[in-house]
């Protein structure tokens, strides 16, 4: 007879089986162990939040202090004037670009010929490594034999023969390789080419590779180009433009001189303003040093140094007086700037006079920016007149400086700014690109695998898609650096794609590149969650739909998909959360440009990337340090919100079904 199931001997955690510690039996011990683990996880989450808040806590007061110093020192005042000059320089910079674009358009293939030449050379040289090395070796061999005293004639002859052979080999090989290079192989597809130059370019590149000197062909081309350029530059509208350009440049000098003078004063003020806040510390340091000095003389020197450190607050009224007094001088240079700019803008030739579309568009841009310029100057002047170093900087200003600030400048010799907007914009844009690319693949894949595929396909496709999730992000980043970036850069040059906004992509490290890689990484997350959502649809729905005579596709799109839409939305949100926290790919593939991106073909920086890049180099507890933790906190809040939203949507789903 088998023992009864309730027999005490067989019970795995039977209470009476002896072992007890402090009155806790095996079963209870295990229960407490698991309970303890769960509690620990919860406690850890709170600890992490606490840690983030703890380090970010100091940001606001510190940033407020930094901005106060910025105001007290008068740097803010001079920056208004800097903004005026910068706005004007933008106009002159555009004006100086116009002739080149007009030339480029008018000269066509001739303008880009040298660029095509060097591109051909690069391509050929990469394939000629062995031959070029052999020639170098032969040449150095010849040199060595000639250097021997006295030279052995036989050796010299063989060495010379080797050089000749190597040269010949290089010549034939380069001829072969260059013969195979066509205009279509150019890396930069935007270069203008002309079939009539092709043979000459090939011959010239081959000659250049062997001799290393500028070839006759290139010299001829340069001469022709110079002649044509001179002709075009002599055209009346370009002459007119040149005059306007000079008019724009003329008032910049006195303005820059004014600016330099008062920036120096402000910078000096800042030094003095910073002194009292760090002086106490420095005095302490100097005194400690004196105490530890080994010689009496050194000790005295240190003590004198310590005494010289001022701990008093400087007299800001006196320091800034020079700036208040400079308002008249500023008005003078500003009037000059405004008047000359007005004349220059009036003298500017019309956009329609230019043949090149890029030249014309620049003229138009000068005109639109020109209109804004006068407004900017007025506004900044008004700021300068109403500026007072005594206006206190509030917490609100520090807070909006962080959340609405468009500049992230650290380790500056002038003033640090910590505005999160460029980073936030970069992170959000790349996540958006990624999710837009990932959703069709992931959701479509989930629908197919879950509803339409054969069991055989199901067995294979699902694990493979999920396997993508196992690829470490750094490997993905390598893929981006080496393969994807270059591919995108090359293939978007195609004129057929130029209708897509922000194409062609001019760099290999851009938001688009990072977005594609992140899309690949988020596909498994979205796929798995979307598939779960599809699985949760009761079988009866499908059966009812089929029984009513709908086809498979109708069932999926009219019945199943609508009933689990909220689950799929939750999946997409969680995928978004996964992407926005990703670091390695955005750090290595997105290019690291800290500015609000204009389009997805720009490089950008991200919140995660900036933390990874800068946290290693900052002093603990400094303003920069707490700014990075503020970014971390913001990221955490975003991720939390996304997760919460996804959970809420999922809950609604379970209520309905």
């Amino acid at each position, binding site marked *: 007879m088998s023992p009864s199931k309730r027999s005490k001997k067989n019970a795995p955690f039977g209470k009476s089986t002896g072992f007890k510690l402090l009155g806790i039996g095996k079963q209870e011990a295990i229960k407490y162990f698991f309970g303890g683990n769960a509690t620990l996880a919860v406690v850890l989450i709170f600890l992490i939040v606490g840690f983030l808040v703890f380090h970010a806590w100091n940001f606001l007061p510190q940033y407020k202090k930094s901005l106060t110093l910025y105001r007290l020192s008068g740097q803010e005042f001079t920056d208004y004037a800097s903004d005026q000059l910068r706005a004007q320089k933008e106009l002159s*910079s555009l004006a*100086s670009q116009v002739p*080149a*674009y007009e030339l480029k358009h008018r000269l066509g293939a001739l303008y880009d010929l040298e660029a095509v030449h060097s591109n051909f050379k690069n391509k050929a040289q990469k394939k000629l490594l062995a031959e070029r090395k052999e020639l170098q070796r032969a040449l150095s061999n010849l040199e060595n034999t000639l250097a021997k005293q006295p030279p052995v004639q036989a050796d010299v002859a063989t060495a010379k023969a080797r050089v000749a052979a190597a040269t010949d080999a290089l010549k034939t090989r380069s001829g072969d390789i260059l013969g195979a290079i066509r205009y279509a192989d150019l890396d930069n597809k935007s270069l203008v080419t002309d079939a009539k130059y092709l043979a000459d370019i090939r011959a010239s590149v081959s000659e250049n590779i062997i001799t290393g000197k500028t070839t006759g062909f290139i010299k001829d081309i340069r001469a022709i180009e110079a002649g044509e350029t001179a002709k075009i530059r002599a055209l009346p509208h370009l002459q007119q433009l040149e005059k306007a350009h000079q008019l724009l440049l003329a008032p910049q000098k006195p303005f820059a001189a004014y600016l330099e003078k008062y920036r120096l004063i402000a910078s000096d003020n800042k030094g003095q303003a910073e002194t009292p806040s760090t002086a106490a*510390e420095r005095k302490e340091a100097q005194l400690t040093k004196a105490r530890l000095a080994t010689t009496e003389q050194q000790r005295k020197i240190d003590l004198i140094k310590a005494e010289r450190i001022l701990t008093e607050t400087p007299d800001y009224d006196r320091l800034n007086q020079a700036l208040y007094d400079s308002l008249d001088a500023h008005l003078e240079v500003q009037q000059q700037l405004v008047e000359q700019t007005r004349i220059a803008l009036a003298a500017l030739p019309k956009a329609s006079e230019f043949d090149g579309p890029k030249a014309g568009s620049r003229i138009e841009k000068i005109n639109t920016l020109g209109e804004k310029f006068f407004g900017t100057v007025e506004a900044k002047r008004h700021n300068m007149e109403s500026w007072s170093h005594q206006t206190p900087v509030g917490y609100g200003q520090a807070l909006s400086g962080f959340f609405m600030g468009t500049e992230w400048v650290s380790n500056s*010799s002038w003033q640090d700014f910590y505005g999160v907007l*460029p980073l936030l914009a970069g992170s959000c844009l790349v996540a958006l690109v990624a999710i837009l690319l990932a959703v069709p693949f992931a959701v479509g894949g989930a629908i197919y695998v879950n509803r339409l595929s054969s069991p055989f396909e199901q067995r294979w496709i699902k694990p493979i898609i999920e396997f993508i999730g196992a690829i470490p992000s750094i490997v993905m980043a390598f893929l981006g650096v080496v393969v994807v970036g270059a591919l995108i850069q090359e293939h978007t040059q195609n004129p057929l794609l130029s209708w897509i906004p922000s194409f062609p992509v001019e*760099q290999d*490290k851009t938001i688009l590149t990072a977005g594609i890689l992140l899309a690949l990484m988020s596909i498994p997350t979205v796929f798995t969650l979307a598939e779960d959502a599809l699985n949760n649809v009761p079988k009866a729905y499908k059966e009812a739909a089929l029984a009513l005579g709908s086809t498979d596709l109708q069932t999926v799109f009219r019945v199943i998909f609508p009933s689990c839409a909220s689950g799929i939305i939750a999946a997409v949100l969680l995928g978004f959360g996964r992407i926005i926290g990703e670091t390695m790919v955005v750090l290595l593939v997105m290019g690291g440009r800290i500015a609000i991106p204009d389009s997805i073909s720009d490089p950008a920086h991200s919140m995660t990337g900036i933390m990874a890049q800068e946290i290693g180099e900052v002093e603990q507890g400094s303003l920069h340090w707490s700014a990075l933790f503020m970014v971390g906190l913001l990221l955490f809040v975003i991720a939390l919100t996304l997760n919460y939203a996804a959970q809420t949507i999922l809950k609604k789903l379970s209520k309905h079904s």
Partner: protein
Amino acid sequence: MKFIQSAISILLGLALCGTAQAQSKLVIKGSDTLGAKMVPQLAEAYKAAGNNVNFEIAAEGSSQCFTALLDGTADFGMSSRSVKAKEKNQFATKGQELIEHVAGVDMIAVIVNEANGVKQLTREQIEGIFTGSITDWSEVGGKAGKINAYTRNTASGTYKTFQKLAMAKQDYGQNTQKMAGNTQIADAVAKDVSGIGYVGLAYVKRDGIAPASVDGVLPTPDKANDYALSRNLYYYTVGQPSGEAAKFIKWATTSDTAAKVIAKVGFIPAQ
């Protein structure tokens, strides 16, 4: 059985550690400009000269030199800029003094893509390019095309020195891209026809890039005094160096072999 095996392997490991520790070890931290090429090659030459020393070199940027020395995690530091007053204070607070040793002279070369027609720039033009007021190659005499400026990251001494020497201490423009090291900048410029960047002299000899002359002077070792962007490279020690560190620094800054290695890497020996 298992226990004996693992015990033996642990013992063996410990024994190996013991022999490794019999060798003296030098930990050097700091600048990427020095630490990526020059100091490792000096270390090799130093070992080849018959010194039984193990080197541990970490090069993440000059700021690391001072943080590591302050923590006491390095025997000496490398820096491509001189120490800041703030950093000096931190050492003074601990009653320590930093000693500076000139390791060599470097010229920060402004590099452009080989295919770029612009090979001459003035200091004002460089300032304009890196502060963002010049955005197109046509403004500095080149063919029409947007300028992509590559700079080092903020921990770098080269970043700061360049700001001081070439940009009148103004901030870098928003459109500049920050790269981790000299090699990365050289790679980026070699790939990007419209790129411009700056690197230590030792990184100029690479296919695809060419140095631009600054105010008419090309960065070559014999022009160190005329070139606008020359700077000293330093080793830093806490107090006078002693033991193996002292021996190495003395050898690296005075011996002929070391001078040859430094020149071969592409920098200029100090003496």
